[in-house]
Structure formats: C-alpha cells, structure tokens
C-alpha cells in the first residue's frame, strides 16, 4: 500500500507523538516537535501539486485544502514559539521535564486529531477526531496543576463532552435521515455520498439533526451562549495551547459545521441553516464585545476577542453567497494568523512580567519595545484597522451583507466598534504609561510572531491572485 500526502499528514504527527512520548530530554523533544510540524506543513503544501484521490474514509477538496494548510502552518509556527516558551517554563520550574514529554506528545496528538477531522470523509470518523482533539487539549489546559488550571480543565471537559455528545446525536440523526435514500452500512456516513443524495433525505429529520449539530459543534466553536469553557481554557493553559485553540481548534469545529451546512443546502425542503448561524454569530459578537470591557486577565481578554471573531465568521458563513463566504474564509485565515501572533506576544510578556493581570503590566513599549510594539501591531490588526488583512475581510463581510440585511449589518458593525474600544482601552494601559512589574529583557523568539503579522499585513495590501481564485472556488463550493 502506498501512502499518499493525505495519509502522510496523519502519519507524521501520530508517529511523532509516539516517539515524543518515549523520548527523554526536552530540548531534543522541542526540536523534534518543530521538525515534525514542519514536515507536516510541507506535506500539506504538496497537496496543491499532486492531488491524492479521495476514498471512503479520507477526502480532499478545495474547502479542506485551505483549512489543512492553515492548520499545519500555524501548527508549525506555534511549535517554534513553544520551544522558546517552554524553555522559560522549565527555568522557573513551572513545568518539569516529565510533564514536557507528555506535553510534546499531546501537541502532536492534537495536530493528528485536527488533521484527521479535516480530511475525514466519514461523519463518524470526523466526530471521533474532534473528540480526540478535545481530550488532548483538556489534558494540556490542566498541565500547570494550579487551582485555576484544574477548574478550567474540568469545566472545558464537562462542557466539551456535552457538546460532543450532542454532536454525536446529530450525527446519528443524519444517518437515520440518509438511510432510506443511501441504504444501510458504511455509505450512510460517507460525506460525499450523503451530499450527493441529500435532496432525497427526510427534511424534518435533517432539521432536528442540524439543531443538535449546531449546538454540539457550536459549543466547540465557542459561540455564545455555549462559550463558557473558552475563556478559562485559554487563560489557564500554556500559551502555545491558547494560540492553537484560538487559531485552529475553533476553526476545525467550524469546519465540521460547514460540512453539514453544505449538506442541508442541497435539500431544498430543509430549513436554511443561515438564519440560525447569523443569529448565534451576532449574539456572540455583541456579547463578547461587551465582555471585553471588564477583563482583568490579558489572555482571557483575547479569548473573548476570539469569541467575537468566531461570531463574525459564523455570521458571514450564515449569510452565504459567494462574496460573504469569500469574506468569511479570508477573515478566518486572517484571524487565525493574527490571534496566534497575539498569543505569541502575550505568552512572552506574561513570562517577562510573571503575571497575566492587566493591572500589573504597564509601559511595555518602553521596557520591552519589540514585544510591546509586536503586541500593539497585533491588536491594531485584530480590531480591524487598515492596512491589515482583517480590515479587508471585515470590510468585505460588511459590504457584502449590507445590501441584503442592513439592520443585521448595523448590529455587526456596532459590535466590532464596541470591541475596538474595549481592546484599545485595556491594551493602552498595558502598552504606555509608567512601566510596571519586572523589566527584564525577554528571551523571546520573535520570528513566528512577525511572520504572522507580516502575512496579515501583506494580505491587507495585496492579496495574490492565486489565493483569490482559490478562495473564490471554495466560496462557490459553500454556496
């Protein structure tokens, strides 16, 4: 049996996870982690050159290609950041080498699970992959063994499990709906087969199924009011995990939801999933934007910002149509890059200052100018100011939906502006004014952060035509 690129992006992380689990010496492990992540990324790039054929279990189309490349790229840059991050954690004794061995194995395990969820052509397999991804992140969120970390892990665990359980019920209902048209057995869960026959499915059953799937995977996307686990998990875990959670895992859950949305779109009698997604998206945007004002913990604040941006993305996908889908995809890519860059900066800042409390951090631009300005650039990008890519994607979301639903768009813009105010208010205090806290120079790796910001800046100024056509194809696919 030959292994094509699709198999390889699953095989590399799973083998590395096994290897990292037994490998002593965290310095070597961190390097191996980077090498494995880089190899996975390069393999995913090869998907553009040689397209492996989709089978009953694995699938490759324009949609998941975008997600896979984004996931493996950020997985790689985060592993570079992680290497310098954990070096500091070992020095101050917050983590022991034994925990790090576990951490690295789990990191690759998470990469494997996310890639599996993205390439799975079987809705049952996709569900299992999302479950594995949830479990590995739960374990990593609790790795510091503090009160707060344990509580965050427990909360994430219980809420994530309930979400996963509801998603499985929805998956079973989809199978039930498909059985009369597709027949019993494996075909009833193969996504490509399901989409082909979705027009003949029982619409009532499909509707109920989608509600469960939206609630289930929506919990994992972090949509309000199902978001309760998200801020804790982001704030209490190691920062590389916060970056991966925000930048990637939320996208993976969203991807699962999009697959089912595409299925419902084929069936003309089923409810349109759009309005449900638009409503939940808008609630998330407004809610998260208001919550930004009362934050005291810097990582928690950016976690709320992630809820806001996932809300914008879900809103845009819910509106649908080629332009809004294009904008949503672009926004998703830009948000993943920017948010993980912000977490790279925040991770080092929290290490330098020895705290995550906003009140105890001040004057960063004078004490640690590179980190400070790096974070500042990230925040300018994330609130949607030009010339960064998020400005362009938010502009596209707003302009593409304004003609169709002016009032909804007004609410959305209001949310974005409230969030802008909240973030600047809090970050301004951290950036400028009297230096507070420790002022030691940072031993940081700036490359991943500035690579991400550079990409976001480039996308804001000039989007390569290849990328535009690629995204347009995907947007058309999403309908």
């Amino acid at each position, binding site marked *: 049996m030959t292994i094509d690129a699709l198999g390889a992006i699953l095989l590399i992380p799973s083998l590395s996870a096994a290897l990292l689990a037994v490998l002593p010496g965290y310095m070597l492990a961190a390097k191996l982690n980077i090498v494995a992540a880089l190899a996975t990324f390069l393999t995913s790039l090869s998907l553009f050159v040689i397209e492996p054929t989709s089978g009953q279990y694995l699938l490759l189309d324009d949609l998941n290609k975008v997600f896979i490349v984004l996931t493996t790229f950020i997985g790689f840059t985060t592993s570079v950041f992680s290497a310098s991050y954990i070096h500091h954690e070992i020095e101050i004794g917050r983590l022991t080498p034994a925990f790090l061995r576990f951490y690295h194995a789990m990191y690759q395990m998470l990469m494997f699970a996310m890639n599996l969820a993205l390439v799975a052509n079987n809705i049952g397999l996709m569900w299992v992959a999302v479950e594995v991804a949830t*479990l590995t992140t739960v374990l990593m969120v609790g790795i510091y063994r503090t009160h707060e970390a344990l509580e965050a892990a427990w909360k994430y665990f*219980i809420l994530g499990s309930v979400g996963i359980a509801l998603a499985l019920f929805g998956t079973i209902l989809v199978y039930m709906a498909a059985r009369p048209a597709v027949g019993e057995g494996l075909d009833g869960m193969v996504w490509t087969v399901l989409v082909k026959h979705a027009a003949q499915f029982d619409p009532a059953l499909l509707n109920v199924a989608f509600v469960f799937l939206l609630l289930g995977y929506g919990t994992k996307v972090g949509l309000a009011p199902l978001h309760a686990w998200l801020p804790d998990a982001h704030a209490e875990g190691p920062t590389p995990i916060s970056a991966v959670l925000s930048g990637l895992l939320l996208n993976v859950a969203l991807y699962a939801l999009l697959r089912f949305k595409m299925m419902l779109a084929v069936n003309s009698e089923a409810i349109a999933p759009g309005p449900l997604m638009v409503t939940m998206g808008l609630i998330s945007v407004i809610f998260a934007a208001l919550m930004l004002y009362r934050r005291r913990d810097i990582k928690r604040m950016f976690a709320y910002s992630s809820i806001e941006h996932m809300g914008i993305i879900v809103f845009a996908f819910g509106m649908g149509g080629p332009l809004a889908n294009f904008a949503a995809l672009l926004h998703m890519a830009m948000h993943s890059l920017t948010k993980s860059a912000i977490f790279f900066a925040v991770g080092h800042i929290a290490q330098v200052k020895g705290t995550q409390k906003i009140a105890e951090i001040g004057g960063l631009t004078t004490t640690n100018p590179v980190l400070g300005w790096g974070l500042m650039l990230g925040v300018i990008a994330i609130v949607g100011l030009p010339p960064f890519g998020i400005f362009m994607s938010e502009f596209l979301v707003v302009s593409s939906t304004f003609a169709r639903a002016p009032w909804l768009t007004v609410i959305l813009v209001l949310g974005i502006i409230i969030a802008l105010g909240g973030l600047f208010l809090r970050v301004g205090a951290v950036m400028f004014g009297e230096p507070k806290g420790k002022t030691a120079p940072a031993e940081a790796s700036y490359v991943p952060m500035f690579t991400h910001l550079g990409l976001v800046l480039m996308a804001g100024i000039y989007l390569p035509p290849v990328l535009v056509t690629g995204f347009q194809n995907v947007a058309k696919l999403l309908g």
Partner: protein
Amino acid sequence: MSSLQFDIAHLLAGSLVLASFMMLYQDRLYALLNVYALHAGVLALSVGWQAYVQQAPHLYITALIALVFKAIIIPVALHRIIKRLGIHREIENVIGIGLTMMAGIGLVALSMVVMLRVTPGADALAREDLAFALSVVLLGLLIMVTRRNAVSQVVGFMSLENGLVLAATGAKGMPLVVEISVAFSVLIAFIVIGIFLFRIRERFDSVDVQALDRFRGERR
C-alpha cells in the same frame, strides 16, 4: 420483525428511561451509582437484543462493553473513589426532587413530540428507540444541571452517553457503532481517572462543585 421481538426491544428501551428517572431522585451517592450500574445493565440487554434482532454480531461487542465496563468496572471504581474521598453521604440537589421529576416528565414528553413527529417515514422500532434515546439524553443533561457534586455530574454524563449508544444501535446498520462506543468508553475512563488525578478533594477539600466557583471568573 415479529411483534414479540418489537415488544421486547420496546420494553428494554423503555426501562432505560425508567432507570434514568430513578437516578433523578437518588439522594445518596452509593445509591446513585447502583442505579447507574442498573442503567448500564439494561443498556447492555437492550443492545444485545438489538444485535440478535438485527442479526448484527458486531453489536454484541458494544453490549459486552456496556456490561463489563459500564455496569461493573466504572461503578466499582467510583465506589472506591467515593470511599477514599469519604463523601458517600451527601448529594446536594440544586432544586427540589419534586420539581426535578416534573422537569424530567416534561423533557420526556418533549422528546416524544419532537422525535415521533419528525420520523413518520422510519420503521417503528427505530422511531421509538430514537425517542427513548433522546429522553435518556435530556434526562442525563437534567441530572448534570441539578447536581452540584462532581461525581454525580459525571454519573449524569455517563447516563447521557448510554442514551447515545441506544440511539446508535437503534439506527439499523449504522457503521462505526462499535468504534464510537469504544471512543466513548475512553472518554468516560478519562473522566473517572480525571476525578481521581485532579484530586478535586485534595485541591478543594470538597467535590462539591460549588467550591470550584470560588475560582471562577477572573483571578484577582
């Protein structure tokens, strides 16, 4: 399918809902665990019967997992944990038992109305199974929200998961059922180990989740 086969399947699935109701009013942890063991035992019987009726031998594996893992190993392990932690006496309900039972009846009625209405096309057994399964899922959620104790929340989650297995086996010919039930067993094992490893008792001097609330929100 003969009417006797249908009746037995119906009886077993209905018993599962009944066992869920029994969990709702238990006010001691040991008793709750015993009812959970019963719940898992009924699930094993129900899945076993489905395996026989559908002539799907792989479902016997799922039944066996339910019997050995969920009805025996997990309750015994939780018994020991409870003993070690010395918390066997109390279960604190957030709302009164009467109100909880009323809510439970409402949820079962809701799932009947929703499920029977949307599945007129499916065969009778699958319809009823799905309606019962949704009831068990919703009752599991109810147990989770009405209990403050971490162990009983986990028991609520496990009963919810039993409902999912019932739904998966009721959907005739569904692939990956065994794999999914194994995946869920791993999840549950994680939770049980989690209670122990996280040592909620040691950390918080209580498994009462309210104690966790002290750490909720922002660190000050």
